[in-house]
């Protein structure tokens, strides 16, 4: 069982113009938690790609649908000891996403599209899709390897 504390909750519209707002907020949050600069970039990229998938695939490009994003600091067992981590849950009310179809594509296949899920999986430690009460839910976890906030932040 993990302990968790809510850090931030955002309700946004499925408008691509909102992506940069979320990126800026999340980048600062990840840095505040003590993630390294490459880890901050990875978390921002994963969430940006996940939101892009929601806008394009769950809401089929409709820019006025609701998305909820919550960000929690959690404590997980990891390699025999406890580790802090950032848990991000994204929820939408769009069309059902079939996790079996969310498999990305072979990278050898040089063509546009299908890269987003690959970026998410490469960037995060846990990626879980589920469908609950008419909502798609994506849970992402990034383990914090340096404990505590970065000095000077």
């Amino acid at each position: 069982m993990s302990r968790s504390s809510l850090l931030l909750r955002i309700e946004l519209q499925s408008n691509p113009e909102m992506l940069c707002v979320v990126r800026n907020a999340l980048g600062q949050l990840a840095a505040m938690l003590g993630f390294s600069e490459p880890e901050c970039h990875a978390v921002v990229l994963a969430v940006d790609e996940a939101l892009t998938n929601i806008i394009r695939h769950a809401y089929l490009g409709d820019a006025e649908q609701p998305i909820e994003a919550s960000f929690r600091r959690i404590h997980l067992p990891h390699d025999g000891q406890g580790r802090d981590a950032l848990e991000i849950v994204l929820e939408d009310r769009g069309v059902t996403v079939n996790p079996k179809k969310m498999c990305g594509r072979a990278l050898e296949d040089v063509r546009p599209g299908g890269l987003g899920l690959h970026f998410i999986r490469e960037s995060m430690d846990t990626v879980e899709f589920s469908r609950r009460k008419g909502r798609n839910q994506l849970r992402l976890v990034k383990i914090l390897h340096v404990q505590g906030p970065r000095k000077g932040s």
Partner: protein
Amino acid sequence: MQIAARHLDKITIFDISGDIDLATSPQLRKALLREFRELKVPRVVLNLGAVRYMDSSGVASLVEGLKASRDVGSRFILFGLNRTIREVLQLSKLVKIFEIYDNEEQSVAP
């Protein structure tokens, strides 16, 4: 994102700044496809030095530009990639398919 075009002999240089994401990548895609498909420019050079962020839709736009360049026998060159942009291209495993140089001088060389 902002795109500014310069022309040097038969080369088009696009100076890109800002973020390339779902909201802005269609603009980049449109500009690239116009240069290759409509104007048949022999060489298009993309200056990415002032790009802060690029996601998979940006990578997809670059891939589309590259394919369009190959279709018409033109060259598509990238330069000025910062660490963040280079990491995204490396993560996509597509970095090797692009012609990438360190600076503009190399990119416009005969």
